[in-house]
């Protein structure tokens, strides 16, 4: 007696296996990459003009909220949430104004004392209680962090406040870069200011502190 299954059952079986395989591939590849779980806070920046956007960020030695309130991080000016993912329009000029409340820590690689990728190749620095100046290179000894977008070739050193300055003191950095084409551009601080032997633990390895993404579309 022929025990082979009927063609209908075979076709249904093949379809079920194909769907299950598709769901499996989607589950392991697509969902983690684009699912909402990665995004903790997302900013859709209000356009001041179609071609020019201004964003204010602060660097706090301890951000004061969330599961790691004592971790260092870039925060929104309200000091209540972190700009993990920032949406930007393509081919726009973005001016970043960063208030740095953190102290001075020399980078491991002094290469990052050079201002790169900004419009004009410079940044404006206003140290605490000092006048504004435009710099192309910063003395690594007074650096604190960087704002680096490797895929756009942007890296800007952040000056740190002196040890004698009060806790509310901050330096202001201002620079402009161009977003160019659509895509995802990660930004990060390249100075090892986290935990562990190499300083790249904790806030350097978790979204929401010393790194994030620009989504340009």
């Amino acid at each position, binding site marked *: 007696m022929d025990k082979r299954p009927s063609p209908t059952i075979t076709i249904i079986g093949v379809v079920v296996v194909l769907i299950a395989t598709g769901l499996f591939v989607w589950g392991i590849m697509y969902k983690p990459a684009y699912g909402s779980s990665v995004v903790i806070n997302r900013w859709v920046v209000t356009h001041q003009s179609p071609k020019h956007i201004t964003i204010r960020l602060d660097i706090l030695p301890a951000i004061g909220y969330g599961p790691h309130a004592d971790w260092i991080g870039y925060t929104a000016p309200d000091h209540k949430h972190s700009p993990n993912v920032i949406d930007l329009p393509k081919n726009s000029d973005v001016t970043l104004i960063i208030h740095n409340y953190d102290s001075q820590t*020399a*980078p*491991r690689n002094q290469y990052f*004392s050079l201002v790169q990728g900004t419009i004009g190749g410079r940044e404006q620095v206003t140290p605490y209680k000092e006048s504004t100046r435009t710099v192309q*290179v910063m003395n690594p000894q007074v650096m604190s962090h960087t704002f680096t977008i490797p895929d756009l070739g942007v890296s800007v050193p952040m000056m740190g406040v002196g040890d004698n300055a009060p806790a509310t003191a901050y330096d202001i950095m201002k620079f402009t870069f161009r977003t160019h084409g659509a895509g995802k551009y990660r930004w990060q601080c*390249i100075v*090892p200011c986290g935990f562990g032997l190499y300083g*790249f633990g904790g806030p350097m*390895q978790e979204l929401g502190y010393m*790194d994030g993404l620009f989504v340009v579309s």
Partner: protein
Amino acid sequence: MRGHGPRIAIIWFVATVIVEILLIIAPIPMGSGSARAAGINQTILMLFYVGAPIFVFVWVMLLYNVIVFRARGRETAEPVPRPDSNPILFLWAALSFTIVIFLAGWGTFTLHEVSEPNGHPLLHIQVIGQQWFWSYRYPSYGGMETRKLYVPINTPIEFDITSLDVTHSFWLYRWDIKEDAVPGVHTIAYADIHQIARINAVCNELCGLYHGYMHGPVRSVSKTDFVSWAKKTEAFEKRTGFLKYLPKFSYVYYPSSNSFTPPPPQDQSP
């Protein structure tokens, strides 16, 4: 069985010729943009060329037997096995031995060839890995440091590779250059690039949150263009005062200190 042998031989021969032609025209990854890639590519192709007849023979035998000697109707008799043939066994062993020895010799020779510098003098370029960024120093040009890797074509190059934090792996896939970047260790890769191209340097060692983003632009240019770019970049780094902030060139920098400067000697003891 009469007539099957010649028939199998003809099918095998024709299929082998087709597969070998496909291998010749099919694009094999990596290309031959550098002396090293050309050597490795040639070895891979040789493996395919030698392996193809064996691969085809196995499949021809399998399919031929499945099709020609399939069960027809309700056969009940078991097939009678043929006795072993000593000449065939000897030929099989001798052929396998010859192929393995030939490929081992070819591979060893190529490995030796691609691991040595392809002439002198060498242009030294230091590759520095850090989470998650590649930077490059050129000791022949005042120790200047850049984020783009520029290399001249047809010039023997020594990449002096190190890391400032965790272990990375410097990988120029198109040119088949891959070497670990280890903190406190100086590793070397030689190269001789033959093509003008724009490629990406990537990290091939899982090194943290943004490992997947750790790539940087690489350009190979003519010798004249390279010298012109290098002199211009060195002049810029001198003019801006940036060069004076860089540490003295060294083959390794010590990550245990939070700076580029080597620590006192006692930190290096085991």
